[in-house]
């Protein structure tokens, strides 16, 4: 209980201080009241969010936020598609796709899966802008990059081995792979459920694969 109150109060204090500091930074003109409104709402969320744990089941606010902003993006390109030329349309669709990819990556990283240090996503969306469900996500691919040393997550059965950097060596003992299968399924389910509720993609259309990081150039090493 003490721990709960401690983190609650800490939250409120940190956010209050941040908002006060931000208020110094914001321009003094007409925009000020909008920023005040948003910061006020964030403050309210910070105050009442922990209470949900007492009254009801856990609420995932991030999900609501992503699904709502996704809805706005989708409606926006739908409206624009009525006015724009084909080529512009393609560019906008691409932009929309990138936005969704970013959302998914953020969401997966937000789950803080152990051992995963990078997530990449790719989606196929309905690009036929005459069709009824234009902008709908047809398929989502998620690649999770695990650290080489980490055996917190073991690969799933259908792992496609993608060679990163070209020199993949089969140095993984097989018994580790079997042990870890279950954790992975659990995580995959969690990711799928979240993406399903946030973006409305059918769970069978979400493909998650794990990739071992073979020490390519992108890996940062801490010395």
């Amino acid at each position: 209980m003490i721990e709960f109150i401690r983190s609650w109060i800490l939250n409120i204090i940190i956010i209050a201080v941040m908002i006060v500091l931000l208020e110094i930074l914001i321009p003094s003109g007409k925009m000020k009241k909008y920023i005040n409104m948003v910061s006020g709402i964030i403050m309210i969320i910070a105050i009442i969010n922990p209470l949900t744990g007492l009254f009801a089941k856990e609420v995932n606010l991030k999900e609501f936020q992503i699904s709502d902003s996704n809805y706005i993006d989708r409606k926006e390109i739908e409206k624009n598609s009525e006015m724009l030329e084909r080529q512009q349309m393609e560019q906008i669709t691409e932009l929309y796709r990138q936005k969704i990819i970013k959302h998914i990556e953020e969401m997966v990283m937000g789950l803080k899966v152990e051992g995963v240090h990078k997530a990449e996503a790719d989606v196929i969306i309905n690009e036929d802008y005459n069709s009824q469900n234009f902008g709908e996500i047809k398929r989502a691919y998620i690649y999770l990059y695990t650290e080489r040393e980490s055996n917190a997550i073991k690969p799933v059965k259908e792992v496609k081995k993608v060679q990163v950097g070209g020199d993949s060596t089969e140095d993984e003992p097989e018994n580790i792979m079997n042990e870890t299968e279950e954790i992975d399924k659990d995580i995959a389910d969690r990711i799928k459920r979240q993406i399903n509720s946030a973006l409305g993609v059918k769970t069978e259309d979400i493909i998650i694969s794990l990739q071992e990081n073979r020490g390519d150039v992108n890996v940062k090493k801490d010395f």
Partner: protein
Amino acid sequence: MDIIQIVGLGIAATIIIAVIKGQKPEIAIQLSIITGVVIFFLIAGKFAAIVDLLGSYFNKADIDIMYFTVLLKIVGIAYIAEFGAEICRDAGESSIASKIELAAKVIIMTLAVPIVTSLLELVISIMP
């Protein structure tokens, strides 16, 4: 010392603009735009540093970093819009300035509405 640079730049630009305005008002406007942009870039690095530091503290709070990002995006949009609108207003085009402000408001709304709806969802979920 940065403030001396910036103030010096601003005063120099103001004097030049005051001299030029009588003969060539169109160049005076361009000069003021350029000055504004230069000052903007001079402080951009500091601004980014402050925001980075604030973000790292926000990470310590239990609340989602996403809210902070949205808040920062809104601040950025407000800054840019004010900048553009002020230039237009200085040049005497206050109608265009108010259009810029309208656009900024709408864009801020599209960012803010998801936060408002998530508050609503929160309230709904608390209700028995």
